[in-house]
């Protein structure tokens, strides 16, 4: 007869979760492989030796120089952008799902991204006008526009996240239908606003098209954008990673988290702020890329469990992998034309979301609480 503690250890060996170190190590290697694959994929034929030559200090031949420029100036910033966007959207999704205590809280679905789009479009139209009114030099105007765009997008995202959180909370518990309906309403408002602005100011090439905002795209990538976005995403990532234990407690409920010593107001504000900052910045440069923040955290939870100590870092890596890979397909499937990345994520994410809803119905007797 095994003693209870022996039985426990046996069970733990069978059913225990994978260790954090091995999971993160595996995902990092996978990410590296995907990055190399992506560096090597595209309209211009390149080989692995071209990729290696680009990052070595050898003097390149004139023929390989073009390829090197393609790799280092076109592909690499885009890959880094995909990495950042994937990491940010997944992390924001995980954080919001923890805050709402519900795995359906995707930033695009519940309207956070629409808030970002409203802010971004406003910035693109307003900032040049302001620059002219204030008679700023061209250089200053350029800087204000580069930073004003993500900042206003963030403000839009932050404002709407607070609204959504307020509306979805009924007596301290997340009311899922209210959360999803708020998302529908906010997305409708956002879509109408963006559509109106894009139509009225149709000549502004920075505004691009409505589909850029509604389906998202990484095509506008260059080192400038990528670095600015990086600034707005790397810092929140480090703040977010420190909320892991508090978010675990939060999943029990707000009152329970308080009883466990969590400063609930502080955690709520931090989570809303950093997820809205990341989503807002992402939307400012890449439009609304949906479902990443829904599907990737769900995959991590299914494989590794919902513990935020692992969910947050693993989600960042898997999110980055997902978007780097999706971007390869977006660039190559219809080559030389480009597929918008949001079309890809929605093609996979939409049915996935439906499947989640159907499953939650059968589990919870037709209630949508998940």
């Amino acid at each position, binding site marked *: 007869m095994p003693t*209870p*503690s022996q*039985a*426990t250890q046996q*069970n*733990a060996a*069978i*059913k*225990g*979760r994978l260790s954090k170190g091995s999971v993160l190590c595996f995902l990092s290697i996978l990410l590296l492989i995907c990055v190399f694959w992506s560096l090597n994929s595209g309209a211009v034929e390149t080989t692995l030796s071209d990729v290696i030559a680009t990052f070595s200090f050898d003097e390149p031949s004139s023929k390989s120089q073009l390829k090197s420029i393609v790799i280092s100036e076109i592909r690499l910033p885009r890959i880094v952008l995909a990495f950042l966007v994937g990491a940010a959207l997944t992390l924001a999704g995980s954080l919001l799902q923890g805050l709402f*205590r*519900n*795995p359906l809280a995707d930033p695009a679905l519940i309207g956070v991204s629409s808030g970002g789009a409203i802010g971004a479009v406003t910035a693109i139209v307003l900032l040049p006008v302001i620059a002219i009114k204030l008679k700023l030099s061209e250089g200053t105007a350029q800087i204000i526009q580069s930073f004003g765009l993500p900042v206003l997008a963030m403000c839009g995202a932050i404002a709407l996240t607070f609204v959504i959180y307020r509306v979805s909370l009924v007596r301290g*518990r997340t009311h899922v239908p209210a959360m999803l309906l708020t998302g529908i309403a906010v997305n409708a408002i956002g879509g109408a606003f963006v559509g109106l602005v894009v139509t009225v100011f149709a000549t502004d090439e920075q505004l691009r098209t409505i589909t850029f905002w509604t389906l998202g795209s990484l095509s506008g990538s260059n080192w400038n954008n990528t670095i600015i976005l990086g600034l707005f995403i790397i810092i929140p990532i480090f703040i977010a990673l420190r909320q892991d*234990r*508090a978010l*675990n*407690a939060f*999943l*029990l*409920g707000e*009152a*329970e988290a*308080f*009883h*466990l*010593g*969590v*400063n609930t107001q502080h955690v709520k504000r931090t989570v809303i702020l950093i997820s809205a900052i990341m989503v807002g910045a992402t939307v400012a440069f890449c439009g609304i890329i949906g479902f990443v923040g829904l599907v990737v955290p769900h995959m991590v*939870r*299914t494989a590794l*469990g*919902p*513990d935020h100590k692992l969910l947050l870092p693993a989600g960042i890596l898997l999110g980055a992998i997902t978007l780097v890979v999706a971007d390869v397909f977006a660039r190559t499937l219809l080559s030389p034309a480009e597929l918008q990345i949001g079309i890809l994520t929605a093609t996979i994410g939409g049915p996935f979301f439906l499947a989640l809803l159907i499953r939650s119905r059968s589990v919870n007797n037709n209630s949508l*609480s*998940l």
Partner: protein
Amino acid sequence: MNLSNTLGHLMATGITVRVGKKTLLEKVDCELIPGKLDVIVGPNGAGKSTLLRAITGEYPVDEGAITLDGRPIEKIDNVELAKRRACLPQFSSLAFPFTIREVVSIGRHPHPEDPKNDRAITEAAVEKVGLVDRIDEGYLHLSGGEKQRVHLARVLAQLEKPKERFLLLDEPTASLDLTYQQLVFDIAQEWANNGAAVLIVLHDLNQAMRYAQSVTLLKDGQLVQKGAPRSVLTEGIIESVYGVQAKWIEADGHSLLAVNQKNQYR
């Protein structure tokens, strides 16, 4: 106030809680003393849970004061407070696929991380509620009663040991069968015997009569009476508070409440 008298005590004096124009609690006193098991009873809507939540510091009180070791509770750091008092809610809405082990180890939140120690305390707590051989099973697949036991284990893991701790349980037996109702009271009693102050909100007056050292009877947010169960839960007081005629019957050394069938619902 004499501080030495209040050390290790949790005192709530003159607690008034209002929501809008509605008064949920009016000038209620409550004292938690190490080694004692106290029970709050009262009809639905009497303010039992509100009082419990006010004592945890969760609900801000409109009037009155709550002190722990003589210090106002709102001045005490969240984490420090969480090491001393834990609260088991009536039900939990956890909707994520944790294992039992993971849910219980969330209870270790206020303590600095120490994997080995945390693991031992978690397992001991799960063992206490009789779920240790299922510790790595998924929480979401458990029955309501099993979930409640998992949360009891979580609360025990949070406090670590009974001495000078405050264990607050909100209707802990509501979804449990007889065996585990007994288990919960055994644990509560054991913790009280080992130096914890235990406060339990109950509906069942039989349980209150049997386990409480002191009973606080609330009605409409006001204190009706407080004291030893036999002096508070008299047939006369029960009739005036609950509006039912009932009679205590002695059986096997315990008092059991027999309620007259012809109730007047008031």
